[in-house]
């Protein structure tokens, strides 16, 4: 998306274009210490949002609140207009539409690659076993790992594991993909292959929220960058604005360190 288009969508945003909206989101693990201290944020369909910020600033917690892996202390999270922090919401159903990719892959070690990918859609009866397998093989072909279908995770490299983990999430046909530092646990030579898969996804207009320290990726892929520090969105903007003309002293300080 060009900058102009982004601005236009910003102005003419119809409610149905918003996938996730957080309102005054707070989270604390221990009394008195707010890890998220009032996050208001809107994520639109087809948008790629990259979240950066210093370690311990609350990026992971923010991401994990979005699919309720962490329960917010207060505030609202609207997913397609429904407040998922409300009582009685079927979170399993909400999560089925939100893919998540973890720093440490979290593949199921006792399942083959194929079963890792097909287990959830088949168990949740979203796809028949045949459909799920076909879908999985198609996705594996896309990342060039179809010959690993019958392998176990322990037989894969880190980069392969993470690509499979991405495919596992994609197999659910999610509306949005959440990534929590997907390349931070990888050997440097494997970072590229994972980022490439993510870039492909971005090209296909997948809605993505990506926590990462890969500034090159952020610059190239992000429609918008959120800078989260001490539980606040301190600053946000297009990569252009953010990297070339940061406003806040903390942002400048951070960028000076990582760039």
């Amino acid at each position: 998306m060009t900058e102009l288009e982004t601005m236009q969508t910003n102005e003419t945003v119809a409610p149905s274009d918003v996938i996730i909206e957080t309102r005054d989101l707070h989270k604390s693990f221990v009394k008195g210490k707010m890890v998220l201290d009032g996050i208001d944020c809107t994520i639109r369909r087809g948008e790629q949002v990259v979240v950066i910020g210093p370690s311990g600033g609350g990026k992971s917690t923010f991401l994990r609140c979005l699919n309720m892996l962490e329960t917010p202390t207060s505030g609202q999270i609207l997913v397609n207009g429904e407040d998922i922090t409300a009582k009685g919401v079927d979170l399993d159903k909400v999560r089925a539409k939100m893919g998540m990719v973890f720093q440490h892959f979290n593949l199921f070690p006792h399942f083959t690659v194929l079963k890792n990918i097909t287990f959830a859609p088949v168990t949740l009866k979203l796809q028949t076993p045949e459909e799920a397998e076909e879908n999985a093989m198609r996705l594996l072909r896309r990342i060039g790992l179809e010959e690993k279908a019958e392998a176990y995770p322990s037989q894969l490299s880190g980069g392969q594991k993470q690509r499979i983990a991405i495919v596992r999430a994609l197999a659910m046909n999610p509306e949005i993909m959440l990534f929590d530092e997907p390349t931070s646990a990888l050997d440097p030579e494997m970072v590229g292959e994972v980022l490439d898969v993510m870039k492909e996804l971005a090209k296909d207009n997948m809605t993505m929220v990506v926590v990462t320290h890969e500034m090159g990726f952020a610059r190239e892929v992000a429609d918008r960058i959120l800078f989260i520090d001490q539980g606040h969105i301190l600053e946000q903007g297009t990569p252009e604005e953010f990297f070339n003309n940061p406003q806040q002293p903390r942002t400048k300080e951070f960028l000076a360190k990582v760039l």
Partner: protein
Amino acid sequence: MNAIIDFFKGVGDYLATAFDKTFIREARYMMFLDGLKNTLIIALCATILGVAIGALIAMVKTVHKQSGKLKLLNAICEAYTTIIRGTPVVVQLLIMYFIVFANSTRPVLVGIIGFGINSGAYVAEIMRAGINAVDIGQTEAGRSLGLSHGVTMRSIVLPQAIKNVLPAIGNEFISLLKETSVIGFLGVIDLTKAAQRVISRTADPYFPYIAIALVYLGVVCILNYFVTKLEKRLAKSDRT
């Protein structure tokens, strides 16, 4: 010199006659074999029952701790483990045999159930440790895919937990094998009871008791060998 030879000859003669009347005469070795069979059956089935019960309790306790759900079930499980671990197994068996299953004509089954229920309370702790040792990321991955807590537990976490605790379950089987030696009072002819019955005919306690001690020891050593081998193999598969 002659005295020494006579002594060994005497010992040899005693062993030969004792062996003969303990094992050979009236095919009494069959009694021991049948006894050993019962001992193994009860220990094995009780272990399986114990693992099933233990896994169930561990899952309930873990889900309750993680999500606060299953309050009532959790309370029942707590009561169960407290009672079972707070009373002697022999008393539990007596209650099973004379009260719960009064007039039962199947003492082996009562023994299996009694020891299984007892073992379950201990295996629950083993399983809980095994579940805790599974990376929390596995649960998070399962839940993030929209799988329920129960499915995630049963299909993702538990299989890995059981693998972690297989050696410990092997050790539980070994303990049960020894503990079942009290089962005779229910009328089950296990290995120990077999020895007692033979003694009642030969009036010689030395040989049969030592003999079954050696049998227990032999079986335990064999099982230990396999458990150790299993431990090594699991450790290796974890590394790759």
